[in-house]
């Protein structure tokens, strides 16, 4: 008999008033890392909110461990979410914040402190753990959110755009952590609007657009489609013009444009380009504050998928 998937939805729909955010979504997610890929506004966050019991389905069914999710304490005790929103009890320290949330899983203060400390070690935040969250950088706040998600050792972890605003080093740490959780047999669902980000964590993806899952399967097939489109990378760096001059010598870089906040690199070969940016910054002592990929690359692919008649199962 076929084994039941860990996460299942059946004709799942979610409306916000007259706006449909999820439209008849049927999917199955099994242990390991799964990427949830789609442009901003595609419905990724809504799907995560329904799957983590933050929202009730308007129609259809969503289950984890074969159980309905909404107001289900059993499910809540075994899942976690690193939300996209930058929300905290700002006056708390990271240690207090994570300890408090672990205590709500029924652990004593002492147990919770030990678990919180371990989680903060994993995200490498121990040095600043006793400082108020309001004093943290964007990357540190992102890692604090991740720590609260993994501290109680959940079986299923949802990470909503976990790499947003992180620097290259922080990004690498988070990716390693996700890979390690997947290797340990955890079910990790990572959402992103950047294919490159998802690709660094898993080859198993769900493509979502306009509230529908439009493809699922292996990332290679999607990669072939996206490679046909120019890819842009935004780099917020000190001395952007000097860094731009340095980058111009890289064969993977197509063109470079500057704006008030940094520089925008266009490439048709993203992987070596993503590798070159931190390497050059490190070698020539540039400080990268932010490295993002706007979702226009993906939007182009989604236009192709939705208007070009692309059908389900990219891997087949």
């Amino acid at each position, binding site marked *: 008999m076929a*084994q*039941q*998937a*860990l996460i299942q939805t059946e004709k799942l729909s979610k409306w*916000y008033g007259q706006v449909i955010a999820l439209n008849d979504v049927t999917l199955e997610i099994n*242990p390991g890392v799964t990427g949830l890929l789609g442009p901003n506004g595609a419905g990724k966050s809504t799907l995560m909110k329904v799957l*983590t*019991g*933050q*929202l*009730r389905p308007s129609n259809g069914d969503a289950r984890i*461990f*074969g*159980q309905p999710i909404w*107001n289900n*304490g*059993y499910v*809540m*005790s*075994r*899942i*976690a*979410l690193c*939300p996209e*929103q930058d*929300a*905290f*009890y700002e*006056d*708390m320290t990271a240690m207090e914040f994570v300890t*408090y*949330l672990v*205590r*709500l*899983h*029924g*652990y004593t203060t002492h147990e919770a402190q030990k678990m919180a400390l371990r989680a903060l070690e994993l995200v490498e935040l121990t040095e600043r753990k006793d400082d108020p969250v309001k004093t943290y950088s964007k990357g540190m706040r992102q890692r604090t959110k991740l720590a*609260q998600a993994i501290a109680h*050792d959940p*079986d299923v972890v949802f990470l909503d755009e976990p790499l947003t605003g992180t620097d290259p080093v922080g990004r690498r740490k988070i990716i390693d952590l996700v890979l390690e959780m997947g290797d340990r*047999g955890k079910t990790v669902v990572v959402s992103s609007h950047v294919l490159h980000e998802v690709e660094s964590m898993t080859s198993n993806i769900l493509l979502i657009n306009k509230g529908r899952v439009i493809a699922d399967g292996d990332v290679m097939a999607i990669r072939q489609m996206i490679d046909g489109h120019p890819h842009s990378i935004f780099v917020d760096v000190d001395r952007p013009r000097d860094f731009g001059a340095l980058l111009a010598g890289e064969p993977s870089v197509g063109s470079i444009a500057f704006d008030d906040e940094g520089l925008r690199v266009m490439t048709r070969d993203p992987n070596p380009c993503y590798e070159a940016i931190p390497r050059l910054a490190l070698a020539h002592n540039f400080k990268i504050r932010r490295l993002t990929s706007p979702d226009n690359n993906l939007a182009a692919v989604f236009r192709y998928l939705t208007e070009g008649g692309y059908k389900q199962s990219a891997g087949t």
Partner: protein
Amino acid sequence: MSSTAMPVKQISFGTLLATIFTTHLRSSLLSRKAIVLAVVNLLPLIGAILYLMSDAKSGMTFYKGMIEYVTITFLLPLTAMFYGGPAIVEEIEGRTITYLFLRPVSKPAIFLGKYLAASVTVAVLVALPVLPTYFVAVAAGGADEGGTQLLAQGLVSLIVGSFSYTAVFSALSAVFARSLLASILFWGVFEWGLSFVPVLEVGTQKYHVRNAGSLIDLGNFGFLDKMVGLKAPIEVPIGASYGALIAVAVLAAALGAVVFSRRQYVV
């Protein structure tokens, strides 16, 4: 499927309630808002000190007036409004509610834990300044034998009133997910408006806090009372007023907890 992978910890409602209560009480008491409202709640004390320095020397009359017309009429509902509503609304608007909903915590425990923390904060902020105000008033003269009893009754009625008002404002925030307008309407229209209407004033929390604190002057029989045909002021037993305040607190908290657990908050 790994549904048998790990035993789930059994967590009692009381333990969760206590965890939420203690955590949010601490942050409530240490917040900037608490400092501002503590200063505002010192108004009666400042008034008492000024009174002490003046020539008029009827300290107890002054004390009663301050507690009845300043603390009970304005400071108590104002402080409860700033803590009761935001107890829930700040979690929703600040999007931190997500973290609480992601735990195996029953939603009533979240609501009640936060409501109790807000109520205790309100009680501390409102009732504590009454003590020095009383002693300054006594120093101004006019203290009689019943002074200490009046102080004790005033403190207890303010504490019970804190829980009652905060419950209503918390419930309104659970229902409307935005508290300020609903709270202002409740206080300004219902509480304030009815408090001037003979007979109907008995339906307000303000009346019962005053009555429980023995602050209603039965000799004060007004024109409106006579107009509606009352022969004598309405006399409600103090115990009944406590009962009414506790009933409002329990019912409003229960309503808020039920609404909060069923409602879906989009953050």
